[in-house]
């Protein structure tokens, strides 16, 4: 049996506070089977009934990359020998963040029929969206292989930046979704706010341009420091690029520490908020 038969379910008024993130991780581990099923379901639903199937997870970032590449070739005179790779990695990393965040925002409200039928820890819904988008990211990452061969790039030890950045992106997006998914049950306006916010930050983050265009001199350095702190995605996207190109990570260490700390804090606070509000929020769906 998957669960012990003498499982005792206790639900009462007491709420976890500082232990919330650990409780969430424990729930995640205990329900890993279910998590796997939810991710599998989302993947199946995505590829059923579509002729290209997997092709779509590759075509969308590719099409965007080509568009931005042409746009840059016309508009900009800066020289970036790896421009297609830069743009493609930026778009892939950004969509991992944006999709995890926006799917996570709506997933509690959209799962109302399931939530009103059976109890299991509700954070599973959010984590299943994180897992699903992570899976999609890894699948689409395969398209950079031809580019790597073309540039004759061999992964150096810089590649270790990749897993760190990916974990941080997931923590950030999941932590934010902990807040928005609860608020979304009360006011459906939240998902539109998230959509607009993501659209704006898409252009404000170095997604289709390198970070150097922002930190590269035109803006005084105290402002670029602020920029890096309030936009953690700038750091993570740049880390992913460095992981493949082997270029040194051009971000001060203090900034890196601040960014990592704030991301972990967002996840931590989000987990506490979610654990405390989830039980009330499900009454609104």
């Amino acid at each position, binding site marked *: 049996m998957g669960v012990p038969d*003498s499982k005792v*379910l206790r639900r*009462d008024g007491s709420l976890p506070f500082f232990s919330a993130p650990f409780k969430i991780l424990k729930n995640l581990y205990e329900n890993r089977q279910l998590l796997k099923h939810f991710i599998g379901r989302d993947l199946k639903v995505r590829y059923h009934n579509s002729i290209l199937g997997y092709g779509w997870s590759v075509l969308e970032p590719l099409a965007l990359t080509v568009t931005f590449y042409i746009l840059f070739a016309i508009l900009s005179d800066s020289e970036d020998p790896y421009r297609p790779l830069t743009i493609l990695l930026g778009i892939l990393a950004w969509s991992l963040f944006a999709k995890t965040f926006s799917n996570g925002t709506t997933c509690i409200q959209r799962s109302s029929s399931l939530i009103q*039928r059976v109890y*299991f820890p509700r954070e599973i819904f959010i984590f299943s969206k994180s897992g699903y988008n992570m899976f999609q990211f890894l699948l689409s990452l395969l398209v950079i292989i031809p580019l790597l061969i073309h540039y004759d790039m061999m992964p150096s030890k810089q590649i270790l930046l990749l897993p760190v950045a990916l974990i941080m992106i997931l923590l950030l997006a999941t932590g934010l979704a902990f807040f928005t998914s609860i608020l979304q049950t009360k006011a459906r306006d939240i998902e539109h706010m998230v959509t607009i916010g993501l659209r704006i930050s898409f252009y404000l983050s170095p997604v289709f341009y390198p970070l150097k265009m922002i930190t590269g001199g035109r803006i005084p350095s105290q402002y670029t420091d602020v920029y890096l702190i309030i936009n953690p995605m700038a750091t993570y996207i740049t880390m992913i690029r460095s992981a493949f190109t082997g270029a040194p990570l051009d971000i001060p260490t203090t900034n890196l520490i601040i960014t990592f700390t704030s991301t972990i804090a967002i996840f931590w606070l989000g987990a506490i908020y979610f654990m405390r509000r989830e039980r009330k929020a499900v009454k609104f769906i």
Partner: protein
Amino acid sequence: MNDNAISVNDVVLDYPRKKKGVGFFREILTGRFNKTPRKDRWFRALNGINIEIKRGEVIGIMGPNGSGKSTLLRVIAGIYAPDEGLVEVEGRITLLAGIGTGFNQDLTGRENIKLTGSIYGFDLKSIREMEEGIIDFSGIRDFIDDPIRTYSAGMRARLGFAIISNLEPDILLLDEVMSVGDHEFRKKSRARIEELVQGDATVVIVSHSKSIMKSMCNKVYGLQKGEIVTDGELESAFEFYESEKE
């Protein structure tokens, strides 16, 4: 070890009156946030419920619409955490309410069996063992590899009931499920429920049907405005229910 399968102690549950908090932003904007009195925003659905249900018992709950019957089942199932009080449940618990929803429309019947099984906490091995039995019971083997969205409502109901009733829960919560589906399906599902009731499962039934209560339940409680108003004797519950009708 205590032999209570379910114990509900002084449970209070409030339900929001405005289902969607659209006023939420307006309240923030106009600075009136949290100034609406609590009793206008929340409605007390359960008001100090106490029930102890022993292993193997079959309990009925009757009451007028809106008296909190379904809410009580949801609290027992853990779907809503009580605002005050404590609910303890020992064993695998299944709530069966309004069959056939909660399926994923784009997955096939077979895939939905697997998904539902895993939602209820079964691992892949035990789901595979149950799969054939479920398909047989549902009687829709010919369509089991088609997506659910191609099913008729009746077929969905059959599959839903087949899955839930074959999960062999320790505790089964039934919310008005014996009044859905066609005649033949009702007979079949009622027989299956009787089978479960006669086994060692603990069962809580919410129903308006006196005959079901009489034939199955050890105890029947009357529920009114979120409070239990009868002592568990069948006759007093029926009497209460009749008086409510008038």
